[in-house]
């Protein structure tokens, strides 16, 4: 970390121009003073909170519906036939391409941005859930069935716990993707939010502000991924395979 900072300071403060041009990038000191100014302003926290709120709502909706749809598709042939083609067609669409429609579709840009975050996070969750269910050893299910377990009981006690490590892997990916999309959506149609702040700084050609925005996004993304990892580790600790 310190080495990267030192290199950055060295390259920018000495206006190095060796193919890559560092002459006009802000120095770490400039970024730091911009960050200090931001930390003292109320709008900075409001921006952080707005982005976090959008991530939390969008991601939670995606996690819940994604896991449910994934389980349905993984367990039921009917659901698989009905939903799989829809999922596969919608999945390659970059969520950010939905911005123009989202602006028209939702009553406010807030819901639009949450929808885009949700859309982005939904597919990694569904797909990893489906794959986690298909990867379960069939002997587990057979064993439970010979002991007289019903469909619901197998689902709750064998399939879901068994699939959890895979589901959490999907959630982790989904969190990363949803950050990318919430930021891009804010840049285009946001009102508050750290992506909005970053883009506005660019509009004013305030490059120190742009870097502060980027670093804030990095820190928030790191924080949320860490939370997912912790929760995942905790949930999976009770599983024989998850402890690893």
């Amino acid at each position: 970390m310190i080495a990267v900072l030192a290199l950055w300071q060295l390259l920018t403060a000495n206006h190095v121009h060796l193919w890559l041009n560092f002459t006009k990038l802000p120095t770490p000191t400039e970024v730091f003073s911009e960050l200090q100014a931001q930390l003292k302003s109320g709008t900075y926290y409001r921006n952080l909170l707005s982005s976090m709120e959008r991530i939390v709502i969008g991601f939670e909706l995606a996690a819940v519906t994604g896991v449910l749809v994934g389980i349905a598709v993984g367990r039921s042939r009917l659901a698989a036939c009905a939903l799989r083609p829809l999922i596969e067609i919608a999945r390659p669409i970059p969520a950010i391409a939905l911005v123009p429609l989202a602006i028209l579709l939702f009553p406010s840009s807030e819901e639009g941005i949450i929808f885009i975050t949700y859309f982005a996070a939904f597919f990694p969750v569904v797909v990893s859930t489906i794959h986690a269910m298909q990867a379960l050893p069939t002997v587990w299910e057979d064993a439970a069935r010979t002991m007289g377990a019903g469909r619901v009981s197998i689902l709750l006690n064998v399939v879901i716990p068994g699939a959890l490590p895979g589901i959490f892997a999907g959630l982790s990916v989904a969190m990363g993707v949803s950050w990318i999309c919430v930021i891009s959506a804010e840049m285009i149609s946001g009102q508050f939010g750290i992506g909005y702040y970053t883009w506005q700084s660019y509009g004013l050609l305030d490059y120190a502000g742009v870097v502060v925005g980027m670093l804030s996004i990095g820190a928030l993304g790191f924080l949320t991924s860490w939370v997912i990892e912790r929760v995942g580790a905790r949930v999976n600790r009770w599983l024989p395979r998850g402890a690893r």
Partner: protein
Amino acid sequence: MTRPSLTRGRVRTGAAGLLATSLLAAGCTASSAAASTVTVDVGYQSKTINTINAGTLLRDRGTFEAKLAALGKTTGTTYSVHWLDFPSGPPLTAQMLADKVDIGSMGDYPTLVNGSKTAQYADSKSELIGITGYNLRGSLNQIVVPPDSPAHTLADLRGQVISTSIGSAAHGMIANAVGHVGMSLSDVRLLNQEPSVGASALMNHQVAALGQFVPWPQLMVFRKQGRLLYDGGTNNVATFHAVLARQSYAKAHPEVMQAFLESVKDTSDYINAQPLAAAQRVATITGIEPEVVYLYNGPNGLVTFDPTIKQPLTDAMATDLPFLKDLGSVTNLDLGQFVNDQYVRAAYGAGYDTTRASLTDPDTLHGTDTACNLPVDNPRTASEVWFAGQDVTSLAASPTCALQQIATHTGAVRAAYVPDTVTGTRLFADAAVWVLDPTAEPASRLLPFALDTDAAGYVISHPQARQMDYPSALARFAAA
């Protein structure tokens, strides 16, 4: 084609130069192997129709390339022009900061930001070398609301969201405008959006108003998706678009600067001589409706195309600076150093000072109104009707005469343009609020207003007058 990444100078020799030379200057032999190639990167905003004479139309007509080719014949240099399109000024400035654009055109506020941001670096320091078009009162920036909005004055927007592009001329106009009605910027909520995004946000009522630059406000009005709430002309601060160049490049290639400004001048002359044809061509290229382009760029239009650097425009920059300093996007800018009229002066020759001093629109409505039998010469009343299927517009001495022509014409009307009764700002007749004043002269009984508050004010001071909409105003003639 991208520029060579390692060469910082613009002059390339060798095989590429030979190839380009032999392609462009047909008939050249091996002697041209010694010739060099000069690359010019020109940034422009295709949809900002205030800069078409330094962008969209200039590129389309190839004037600049032709002048450079003629120049190259005498000097043996080959010029290669690259055009780069941008949605607004700030990204263009970002590219100029990175030395990737040599000449660029943008609005007044982004121009000042450009000057201030680039001033810190010797290689990308910019200077203002010319103007594309201007409006002395500031009517190029306007605030529109949805047609059914309850807001009728700017004060009605207190606490509401206004979509604008932060740091643009429109943002500056809003800052001035709120001051005019006794509010401050903190009384409204500004939302930073690209104009096209703001337009869709307004259509869906996600924002209460849209404060933007040309051509967006009147585009919304023409499409019946917006109603004018505030005309930037009320602020009475000149607004314009400027041509900027990187000083280091300009010093190395003064002949390119002069050729560019000569081309801008030629294109401006063409627009002023053939406004309807120019508007239709721009409409074809940009996808903006020709009726909207012609509202701005036509005779007596909101934009006056003239590359000379006029005193009121330099004064306006001095007026604009404090706002940008407050915003934090301009630290300091020495306008005396920033403005360099050397190239535009050379492009105009002896006539420069005369043209620069003139503040009259070279493109005005002149002629005779055959229907009303009156001369068309007063820009405060001269109107124009563009009937469907016609290559020329029909002149009208007054808005009333224009309505009479429309009412008696069999066939469709593409657009009718009338000047606002209070300010003279050119409007779409069907978007205006009309007032019938029976006490006035027959040819000026029907008066168009851009703002319904102005119309209401007229009715209060003229008790016999009454307000009506466009169809009712037209119906007066159908009945008569």
